[in-house]
């Protein structure tokens, strides 16, 4: 575990320290503190539950980007019996911010693609903080096409602050690479499950995020723009991100009420980083459940349902009887 503790996690960490001290004392001085320890542990659980049932949207955003939060490869190492990583887009380079490969999960073989963050500064520099260049999306597409060719389902792990905004990325067609993936994923003839495991920012997330099922871990966020990005546009001040996170409605629960998510996967008490193994098991069970479900759907029907799923997204009002509102507003203006 790193030394980084989020503000709202402090009471939890303090209680944990106390409990640790009690354990130490009881073993060193051979006194029986088990009753006290039990009480303290109960208090700890109550505290965690209380804090986590009242998190603001901004606090969830912070949990989603917690430095100790498990990454794609952390999960893969726990849920795959085998994982063969592949590299490169065959055009330009190998993007380290995206991993792709062939995974065996229980009885299923599938192609897994995920954003990859590092767990320390050195790793993060290597992984470009999980922010892909066009090559990452093109590597992902290459892996997906292989999946289609060999009738393997695709599972994607989404965790990015966004596609990288740089000169090279623009020169090599960041927009085209993302657009191409949306286009191809919508008609890929194999089941696709997308799991948001941390952060989901904008087209950089969606670029590997079109599928038959969209699952979100409980403490994740997913939106059209990061709260900071939105704040710096609307207020010219990225420190207004906590306010904007509320307005943008970015959390997993928000996405559920907006009709985007198929299921929210519960995290261990206190967040995914507090129990990687348990979170990994939750993800694994969800993958197995949905792969079984999707396998039973005939391919044409699966694609039809997928397009329909996205066709329904969004809200609008429409009245066919009333004269077009634009007509009346124009005449109002001319009066």
């Amino acid at each position, binding site marked *: 575990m790193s030394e980084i503790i989020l503000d709202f996690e402090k009471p939890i960490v303090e209680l944990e320290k106390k409990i640790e001290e009690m354990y130490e004392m009881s073993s060193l001085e051979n006194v029986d503190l088990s009753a006290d320890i039990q009480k303290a542990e109960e208090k700890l659980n109550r505290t965690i539950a209380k804090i986590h049932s009242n998190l603001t949207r901004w606090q969830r955003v912070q949990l989603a980007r917690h430095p100790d939060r498990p990454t794609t490869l952390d999960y893969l190492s726990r849920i795959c019996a085998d994982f063969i990583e592949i590299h490169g887009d065959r055009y330009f380079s190998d993007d380290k911010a995206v991993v792709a490969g062939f995974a065996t999960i229980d009885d299923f073989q599938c192609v897994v693609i995920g954003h990859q963050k590092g767990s320390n500064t050195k790793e993060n520099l290597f992984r470009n903080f999980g922010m892909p260049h066009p090559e990452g999306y093109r590597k992902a597409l290459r892996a997906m096409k292989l999946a289609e060719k060999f009738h393997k389902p695709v599972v994607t792990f989404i965790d990015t602050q966004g596609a990288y905004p740089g000169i090279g990325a*623009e020169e090599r067609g960041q*927009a*085209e690479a993302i*657009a*191409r993936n949306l286009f191809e994923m919508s008609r890929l003839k194999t089941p696709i499950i997308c799991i948001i495991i941390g952060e989901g920012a904008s087209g950089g997330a969606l*670029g590997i995020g079109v599928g038959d099922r969209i699952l979100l871990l409980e403490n994740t966020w997913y939106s059209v723009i990061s709260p900071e990005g939105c704040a710096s546009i609307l207020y010219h001040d990225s420190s207004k991100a906590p306010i904007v996170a509320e307005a943008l409605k970015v959390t997993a629960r928000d996405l559920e009420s907006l009709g985007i998510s198929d299921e929210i996967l519960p995290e261990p008490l206190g967040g995914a980083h507090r129990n990687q193994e348990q979170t990994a098991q939750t993800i694994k069970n969800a993958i197995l459940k949905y792969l079984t479900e999707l396998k039973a759907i005939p391919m044409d029907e699966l694609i039809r349902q997928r397009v329909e799923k996205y066709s329904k997204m*969004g809200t609008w009002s429409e009245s066919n009887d009333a004269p077009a509102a634009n007509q009346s*507003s*124009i005449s109002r203006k001319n009066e």
Partner: protein
Amino acid sequence: MADWFKRTKQGLLGSEKKVIPDGLWLKCPTCSEYLYKRELEKNYWVCTQCHHHFRIPYYDYLRILLDGKFGEFNAEIRSTDPLEFKASKRYDEQLEEAVKETGVNEAVITGTGKIGKHTLVICVMDFRFIGGSMGSVVGEKIARAIDKAMELKVPLIIISQSGGARMQEGILSLMQMAKTSAKLAQFHDAGGLFISILADPTAGGTTASFSMLGDIIIAEPGAFVGFAGPRVIKQTIGHELPEGFQRSEFLLEKGFLDMICERAELKKTILRLLDFFYGNQTLHPDNE
């Protein structure tokens, strides 16, 4: 179907001011030349000195490109402010203002029309409406326009003029990228021709979805075309951006556009393409 020409007249009276400042003369932002507005209008709102392409509203594109009437559809679809978004401004008020200012209900106008003998479906975005941004309604109208082109078995033209996905509808705006791209995939599989025309600006989630998925992609000269905004890139990399970066000439050079086309040549170019893909009946009357 709306009576297009009648509406154009009204629309011009109502909203011309918002696009082109008052007065008879206009200063070109590129070469600083003062231009007589009447002349400019005759010249497709392109600077006679330096060919700077002024941003124009949807009705000017329709007038420049179409022969005969424009049959608008889905004009009545409106945003419902699904997030009840309120930050520096209230989104519902922004929408109301935009409707008043532009005389249209959303940032894209969709309908059928003709270029030469070719019937087609055309979508024109309008930057005046909240920066031409794509929320639920823009996504839905474009998706339905693609369906219409599929149903009629006619080509599709989309003119992009958009700052990107609309922040005020959060995740729902993002999903419009997937929606429009999925529809285009169906259209592609059905054998439809999609000509994507990029005007200034084509940015963010618009570029990263339908705009970049044209069978043919044409941009206006000097148009901004990119994914990330230049300010964000500059902040990230910590130095200035090269001259001409993210302009259409740059994208052509990098291989992401088929051609750059002056506004005055746009209709002719599209017609040549349509004739190529769907047969030029005027050149080959015997084949009719």
